[in-house]
């Protein structure tokens, strides 16, 4: 407690200079002077100073925050020193969080569209009316027995909120929960699935690694949980005994490449080939971890299956096809560098290779390197995060209509036998749904997502939204997609609401943060969880019974009560407590810092979260969920999925490779079919600066102000060109340059950077909004408008760095 602060602002205003004006008499003089001088006074926040712990939501990273309040005003956000994700640190996004709370362009109450869609004409309505409108609409749909024609699109959300949304759909009778997550930030999750059989939980134990080989993963800028990586980076550099080496392989000299020990420029899209080249050398020189491969891997050597057919193994393939010479010619990386990398990577243990979620074979190639050095489920390698406990909600009993509706095919389901590895395609479903394939949507709810901005086809998505008769947005801000909505039911910002935030950290253990309101809602907004529950209650029947609490906070308390009953973990604490918990857990002990559920709930609010800081190595069953219960170089999961496909189908989905090679890590050029290399000689490389990774923070001026460390690159978007190339094209610094792809052209300000490859031009992603308030609207351009958006043949995931462009002076 700090006591009361009472400090006047601007009292030291220069009255002295008003002397001449005083000639007219003090009062009049002062008035004249002030009018001329144009100064004003600022109200001072006063009141008791307090601190409240909560969880940041400026990105999905899940950092713990401590908000400093003076009276009822939040004045500063800092990291919560007890919170294991960030330990008191906070990234610039977290720091600028108050600008989201106090954004002058926030939506201040429920809005109903009047006039044309997208015309921006709104009418304020009461919450009761708004909810009634939605209920009426939903009842209509229900009466038509078409409950499956509603869908919820949700962005980065997890935990109870996701559970409630899914539960609402299920109880209502729709399978269409569509989670849109920021794929750029994830690691090679598809490879993780194909080779280890797990869909989530991929973490890199950076803190214990000695050699980090990053294949285009812009760790320091666009990782899903930035502070964790930044913390780990500081730690491995200087805090622990030995200093880890970081190698960044990337076409652009990103901040990560700048801060790495070495930057290795590489032709875009060939990272997988380099990984295979490194694997080739490691195997040829016998540097791979034979022990791991013998005990824990499948498909390394050639093998014979049950039906006596012999198959090629990883070793054979790599030795045959990826000699350094070939790899060098594909990647543009000199042979000696490849040799050096292979030797360093194999001998500086623990080493870890980190990739991107690009094309599947490349992902597999990178992930295979981890197995080659035995860095799977070992300190300093790839860990498999322990499950985050999911407290159960009471079962629901949907009625007949709902049951029928929920059994309908998912609306975003890919067309049959296309995109084998995709359950649903959040990025393209809207475009398909607008054609009535598989069925038309009657209502769409948007929660924490802005598909018009973040999709590759803004016009297409906008057009698709146009065809949906009823759109409800829960956004707190007037973003592009909310502009197209019929009804906006604004949510609180993250500093005004209750929420849980389950997340795992880089050490692979589960954490559940408690986000709680630090200020009471500034405007007439409402928690979307409350709205969902109100809708359910309004609709009645089985829906009303589906929710255990009367509102979201009550449900949350119920949820944590269940967590308490599970008898796991403890409240978050200092590093010592982590070690102490581990020490106890090693002997099978646990000593929580609370006894009763009330105490748990109380202290949870004080501390900010719950954790179970335990990770065990060697739990083979948990780490390898593949058919062979081992790490699979030869992915049997993929084989099973592909197996049903005939030759022509493979051709149709664009997979060129056949036979065993298809199931092994390999490299194939991802060549967009319509690209003409002569006409469009450069590759467009889109990257995400830290402040806009996640694409939700463009409306915060502090972040716009630091988009780039370099001059003239703030409040704007730019194109990075190699100076030599620029000279050839007659472009100089600051010129406006047209960037033209087959899809269209945009002009950007030219920045000449030595750290750009001559054949690659780089553009940051994050600005270029057409809405979202005064600090985002019409600032910069969105390069996604000219991206061709090719889809990965197996996952249907868009590949953003395959577009070819030409550039010329505007």
């Amino acid at each position, binding site marked *: 407690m700090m006591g009361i602060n009472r400090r006047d602002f601007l009292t030291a205003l*220069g*009255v*002295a*200079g*008003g002397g001449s004006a005083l000639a007219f008499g003090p009062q009049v003089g002062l008035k004249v*002077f002030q009018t*001329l*001088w*144009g100064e004003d006074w600022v109200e001072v926040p006063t009141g008791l100073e307090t601190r409240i712990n909560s969880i940041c939501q400026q990105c999905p990273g899940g950092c713990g925050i401590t908000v400093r309040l003076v009276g009822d005003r939040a004045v500063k956000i800092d990291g919560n020193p007890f919170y294991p994700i960030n330990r008191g640190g906070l990234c610039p996004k977290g720091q600028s969080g108050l600008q989201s709370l106090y954004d002058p362009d926030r939506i201040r109450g429920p809005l109903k569209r009047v006039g044309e869609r997208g015309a921006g004409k709104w009418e304020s309505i009461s919450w009761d009316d708004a909810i009634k409108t939605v209920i009426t609409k939903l009842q209509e749909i229900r009466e038509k027995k078409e409950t499956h024609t509603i869908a919820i699109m949700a962005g980065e959300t997890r935990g109870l909120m996701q559970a409630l949304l899914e539960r609402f759909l299920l109880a209502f009778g729709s399978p269409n929960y569509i989670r849109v997550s920021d794929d750029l930030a994830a690691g090679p999750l598809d490879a993780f699935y194909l080779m280890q059989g797990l869909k989530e939980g991929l973490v890199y134990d950076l803190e214990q690694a000695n050699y980090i080989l990053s294949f285009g993963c812009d760790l320091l800028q666009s990782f899903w949980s930035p502070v964790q990586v930044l913390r780990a980076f500081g730690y491995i550099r200087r805090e622990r005994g030995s200093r880890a080496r970081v190698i960044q392989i990337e076409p652009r000299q990103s901040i990560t490449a700048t801060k790495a020990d070495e930057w290795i420029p590489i032709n875009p899209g060939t990272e997988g080939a380099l990984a295979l080249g490194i694997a080739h050398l490691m195997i040829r020189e016998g540097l791979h971890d034979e022990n791991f491969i013998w005990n824990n891997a499948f498909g390394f050597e050639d093998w014979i299956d049950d039906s006596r057919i012999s198959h090629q193994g990883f070793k054979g393939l790599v030795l045959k096809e990826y000699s350094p010479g070939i790899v060098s010619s594909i990647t543009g990386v000199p042979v000696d560098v490849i040799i050096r990398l292979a030797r360093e990577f194999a001998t500086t243990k623990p080493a870890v290779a980190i990739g991107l979620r690009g094309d599947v074979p490349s992902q597999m190639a990178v992930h295979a390197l981890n197995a080659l050095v035995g860095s799977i489920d070992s300190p300093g390698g790839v860990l498999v995060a322990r499950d985050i406990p999911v407290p159960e909600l009471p079962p629901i009993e949907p009625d007949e209509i709902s049951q029928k509706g929920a059994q309908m095919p998912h609306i975003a389901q890919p067309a049959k036998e296309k995109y084998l590895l995709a359950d649903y395609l959040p990025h393209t479903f809207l475009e398909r749904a607008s054609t009535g394939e598989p069925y038309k949507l009657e209502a769409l709810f948007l929660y924490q997502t802005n598909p018009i901005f973040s999709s590759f086809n803004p016009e297409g998505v906008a057009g698709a939204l146009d065809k949906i008769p009823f759109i409800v947005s829960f956004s707190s801000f007037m973003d592009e997609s909310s502009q197209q909505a019929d009804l906006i039911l604004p949510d609180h910002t993250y500093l005004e609401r209750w929420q849980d935030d389950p997340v795992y950290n880089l050490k692979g253990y589960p954490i559940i943060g408690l986000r709680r309101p630090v200020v009471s809602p500034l405007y007439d907004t409402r928690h979307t969880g409350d709205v969902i529950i109100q809708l359910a209650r309004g609709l009645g029947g089985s829906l009303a019974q589906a929710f255990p609490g009367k509102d979201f906070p009550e449900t949350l308390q119920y949820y944590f009560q269940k967590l308490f009953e599970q008898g796991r973990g403890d409240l978050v604490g200092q590093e010592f407590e982590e070690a102490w918990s581990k020490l106890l857990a090693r002997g099978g002990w646990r000593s929580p810092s609370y006894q009763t559920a009330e105490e748990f709930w109380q202290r949870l609010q004080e501390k900010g979260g719950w954790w179970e800081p335990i990770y065990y190595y060697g739990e083979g069953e948990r780490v390898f969920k593949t058919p062979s219960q081992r790490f699979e170089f030869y992915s049997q999961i993929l084989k099973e999925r592909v197996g049903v496909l005939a030759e022509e189908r493979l051709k149709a989905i664009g997979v060129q490779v056949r036979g065993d090679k298809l199931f092994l890590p390999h490299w194939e050029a991802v060549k967009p079919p319509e690209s003409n290399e002569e006409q469009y000689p450069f590759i467009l490389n889109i990257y995400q600066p830290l402040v806009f990774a996640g694409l939700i923070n463009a409306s915060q001026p502090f972040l716009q102000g630091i988009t780039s460390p370099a*001059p*003239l690159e703030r409040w704007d978007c730019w194109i990075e060109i190699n100076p030599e190339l620029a000279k050839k094209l007659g472009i100089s610094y600051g010129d406006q340059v047209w960037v033209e792809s087959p899809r269209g052209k945009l002009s950007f300000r030219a920045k000449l950077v030595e750290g750009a490859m001559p054949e690659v031009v780089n553009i940051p992603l994050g600005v270029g909004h057409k809405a979202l308030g005064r600090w985002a609207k019409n600032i910069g351009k969105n390069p996604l408008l000219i991206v061709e958006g090719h889809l990965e043949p197996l996952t249907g995931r868009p590949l953003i760095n395959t577009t070819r462009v030409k550039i010329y002076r505007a």
Partner: protein
Amino acid sequence: MVIDPKVIEAERELVAKIDQDEILFKPILSTGKGFYLVAAALLTIVVLAAYAYLAQFRYGLGVTGLNTPTYWGVYITNFVFFIGISHAGTLISAILRIARAEWRRSITRSAEVITVLVLFFGAGNIIIDLGRPDRLLNVIYYGRFQSPLLWDVVSITTYLTASSIYLYLPLIPDIALLRDRVKGIRHWFYKVLALGWRGTERQIHWLEIAIAIMAILVIPIAVSVHTVVSYVFAMTIQPMWHSAIFGPYFVVGAIFSGIAAIIIAMAIIRRVYHLEDYLRPVHFDYLGVLLLVMCCLWFYFTSCEYLTVFYGAEPVHLAVFYSKITGHYAPYFYAMLATCFVIPFAILANGKTRNVTGCVIASIAVTIGMWLERFTIVVPTLVNPRLPYERGIYMPSWVEWFIFAGCFAFFTLLYMLFTKLFPIVSIWEIREGREKSLAEVEERLRTYLPFKEEVSSKK
């Protein structure tokens, strides 16, 4: 040969008029339409400038083109420039007085007026440049003598006082003359200012002593003023500011621009008030020679400065250097070189072109050039900071241009008003020259050289 007595009468009248220096009183006693037109035009500019300043006062210095790191621009350039011009007067007139250069008699007044008036604009530009002009008095309340800016405050105040006195002293006899000629309010006005001047021996004696003291006093003050002005820059560690020759360099530049200013002023007065008889080509010729000398000196200092920087080749200094030689400020730099050296040198070095027109052209060039010189000293250094910041290009805004123009207009207006109140050529000194100096010069010359009489008398 018989001469028409009418002609003789006319001639006699003319002589009497010349003796009475009627033409010098004319501007004061009668004012034409042209004056009002010009004054109105200038006043318009001044009002616009005042408006511009009011905008700046209200909204802050943001209305200028200044930025980070170009914190100083036109105003500081003006400040240095006007202070430089001020050397015109006092210094030239004082030196000429002390040197007893007789040709000075008709030009001292116009020079001294420039000094006094222009100093207001020099100091004024500093105040205009302040972010908080309302706190100006803090300089007195909290003044810290270690700041070169405070040295400036002191030396400029001193200089302003000294040069005002130095202007006023030789003005007293002329005011007395005017007092005796006019009636009404103006009589009363001149009576107050004349301080009871009767032209007695004693008064003349003391006046001459006072003028002599002031003339001597004003020279070191003038030199110090501009040295101190240069110290504002030289005392920092910024590249191409932190230079030991800045003191003399600035003084030379100041005298240089000062002479140019006098020549222009003289030319205008001569034309407007038809003073061809008083301000003769010979004056221009002499001043032209002086200007030529200063021009060479200026060039010498400039080359010293730039050559040492170039040869020393310190990267930070070179960055500034090249921004002037080949970079964004090259146009300014070469314009300065042309107007400060090439044009005046070409005109003045040649006796044939060193006529009135030639001198005026050269002077105008020098005036422009010296402003550019100050600009290229102030701005490029700031635009090229040591650390890798963005190089903001400084472009003065309309406010700055208006205030700049306003300063010139206001200065001209005040100068015009002065000519309407006081004789712009010192009448009594002209008369004194006519009455006493011929003999005195002859006497002086005798002390320089051997003369026949002396030889004979010695024998």
